């Protein structure tokens, strides 16, 4: 298998002519790169050793926020460098870091209301509704909508709408009202997860049961078993059917806590 960007593939690269090269401009400087590369790999192909602007290389960590445009267009386009394939004549600049306000708070002392959010981030009212944030989101999140929901006190809505946020900061980089939308978003998600979604009753019970050492005996038995016996017990264990009901119960309840 080849790798993400395989240095050891160099012999192959040299022996086979590379077709479909496209010109791109990295920070205004022209390079010809293979048309199949992502922007991230195009930087590396051009000779860059990336330090900033490169993280998971899989579209989830938000390290490689990138802006670009084409010569015949006034529009600023955005993407994650590791996910966006190069196109001819792209003018590319990475924005791996953008300073943004993050309020200090102790989640345990907050209430899940709109006024909590607006008190911590009063600049939220400066939103002019221009929608640049939404157009700047590489994850296709309706950023302006979750901001307006946060203003309206709809914490749940803001949390659900912003769930896919990778916190790359492109929204904040382009916002004329100087907001840090992604920091507001995580505040709403944590308020939602902590206070609005009901806690799991069975989780509380499970923690209690462990604290009361209800499983200690069973575990002690397993820990003492020799491998052959352990394999036997392993092979005989019941397996919950994949599409069975949530309240499925096994035959053997010796090592469970039944109500």
């Amino acid at each position, binding site marked *: *298998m*080849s*790798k*993400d960007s*395989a*240095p*050891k593939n160099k012999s192959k*690269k040299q022996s086979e002519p590379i077709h479909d090269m496209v010109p791109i401009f990295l920070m205004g400087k022209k390079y010809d790169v293979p048309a*199949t*590369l992502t922007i991230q*790999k195009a930087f*590396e192909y051009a*000779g*860059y050793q990336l*330090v900033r602007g*490169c*993280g*998971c290389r*899989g*579209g*989830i*960590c938000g*390290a490689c926020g990138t802006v670009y445009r084409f010569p015949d267009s006034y529009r600023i386009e955005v993407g994650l460098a590791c996910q966006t*394939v190069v196109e001819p004549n792209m003018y590319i600049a990475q924005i791996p870091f953008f300073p943004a306000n*993050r309020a*200090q708070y102790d*989640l345990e002392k907050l209430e899940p209301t709109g006024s909590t959010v607006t008190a911590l981030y009063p600049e939220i009212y400066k939103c002019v509704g221009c929608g640049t944030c939404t157009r700047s989101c590489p*994850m296709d999140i309706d950023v302006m909508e979750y901001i307006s929901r946060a203003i309206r006190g709809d914490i749940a809505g803001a949390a659900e709408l912003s769930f*896919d946020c990778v916190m790359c900061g492109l929204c904040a980089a382009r916002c004329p009202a100087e907001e840090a939308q992604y920091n507001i978003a*995580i505040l709403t*998600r*944590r308020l*939602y*997860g*902590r206070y609005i*979604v*009901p806690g*799991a*009753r*069975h*989780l509380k*019970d*499970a*923690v209690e049961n462990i604290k009361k050492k209800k499983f200690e005996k069973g*575990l002690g038995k*397993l*820990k003492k078993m020799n491998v052959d016996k352990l*394999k036997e017990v*392993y092979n005989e264990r019941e*397996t*919950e*059917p*994949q*599409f069975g009901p949530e*309240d499925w*119960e096994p035959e053997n309840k010796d*090592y*469970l*806590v039944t*109500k």
Partner: protein
Amino acid sequence: MPYTPELKKLIKRVEKTRPERVERKKKGEEFPALSLKEREDILKYHPDFKDEGRSEIKVGSSKGYKISNEIVDLLHAESRVSTELLDLSNPDYEADVLVIGGGGAGTSAALTARENGAKVILATKLRHGDANTMMAEGGIQAATKNTKDSPYYHYLDAMGGGHFTNDPDLVEELVNGAPLVIQWLEKLGAMFSKFDDGRLKTMHGGGTSRKRMHYAGDITGAEIMRTIRDEARSHTDDIKVLEFSPAVELIINKKGICSGAVLYNLETEEYIIVKAKATIMATGGSGRLHMQNFMTTNHYGATADGLIMAYRAGVSLKFLHTVQYHPTGAVFPEQSEGLLITEKFRGAGANIVNVEGKQFVYEREPRDVEASAIIRECIEAGKGIPLPNGKYGVWLDSPMIDIIKGEGTVRKEFPGKWILFKRYDIDITKDPMLVYPTLHYQNGGLEINSKCETSLPGLYAGGEVSGGVHGENRLMGNSLLDVTVFGRIAGEAAAGFAHNKYKDAKLTLEHVDKYHKELKREGVDTKGRVSPMLLPDYSNPDVRKRQLTTQYLGTMR
């Protein structure tokens, strides 16, 4: 890049067998799972069993141990720093606890050390949160439903997955700690997928006997990581984060206590001395070493740094002879290569099928078994799907999920992957995905006990950098659990050490000099290599050849 006409033709074969496979699935008739004996036979196809992939370590406390060539090369290398040039007498920073690594384990450790009264410095190579934790998609195991599950069964499953080689004490900590960390994360506001009444949704993973995989959409790791990172950012007075500052060597004082580390500022290229009363190694894994030339799902920074530093300081290595290949990494289109396709797809009902559209393996075998079966199907049986770049893959039949569980399920449960493939003009609710095993997880690592102590006083380790809890193979959903459970244990233990056991003395790097001497004595040719590696080199080799400056004078490097 959408599927080529050739691949589209082959998809027809998958579509032909799909209705029958769906029917069987609906009836609960599964492809027969392999017996323990059959598993053993098929594991011969696993890359771990290729002898040419391994070599012996010639120095240090695990001398004679045969592990991946790529890690051995880094162990058979010299320090990045000249020890005589470093002045350790004036540390740049001091803290109770130094945490090395800003992923799930490091951040959990920092938060818990703080809860236990410690002032913490967290040093991380890239940004805080840039780690494999962020990329974990599937879920986190915990026996939270005691009417059908308990730590007893979780223990049994973990041992079976690890071929009964796991360290029992560590597994006990893992399964008992599991519900506690789920509760901790719930309290921190992590948005787990739940039913309306607050019950946590859970599902199966490979090798689980009960549905105990908790999840947050298909970005469970990202949700956990960004939540605990946000919590750390709420305590900036107690937790100071140094980004783009990887550690390159540990510091040991004259009383033999680990007392911090030498950091390297990746941008200014300065070395920075951090003195600490206890140190936690949480640098994660090593997929970016590309063992045996495999592609990887890992983060850019996964280069085994912690293993190297701690090994030089005398800590032994365990279970590093096994490497986990995730059975299903994307292989098409090329720009998605290596990306993890979570096991949840198989948990939700998607079959693995060959070029004929036939199933050849039960889709929920433990990962090493599943990966071996796919490699065998492609390489020995010759029934892989040929790709435009000359490689092979097998189909992961994702459209089955919507047929079985109702339209919209894939979009709802796998939003991340749906969007990603949509960008390539592939609709995974209509067409299957092409997958092949990809380097995923470092099963082994630094030897620790159930308090996360290493053999070096004052040095703790937790998460992927440590070894033992997963034995020779980890089950899905036990890594997010590992980082949070053992991160928290390490944080508490290190804070305790800093307050009660630490003894001040002169800082030294004598262990590094000693290691260098041993390399020489054993006649190891380091070939000019230095380690830790810090970052993989993906820059264009043709450009490298033209970088002709050999000596630097003046302002330009």
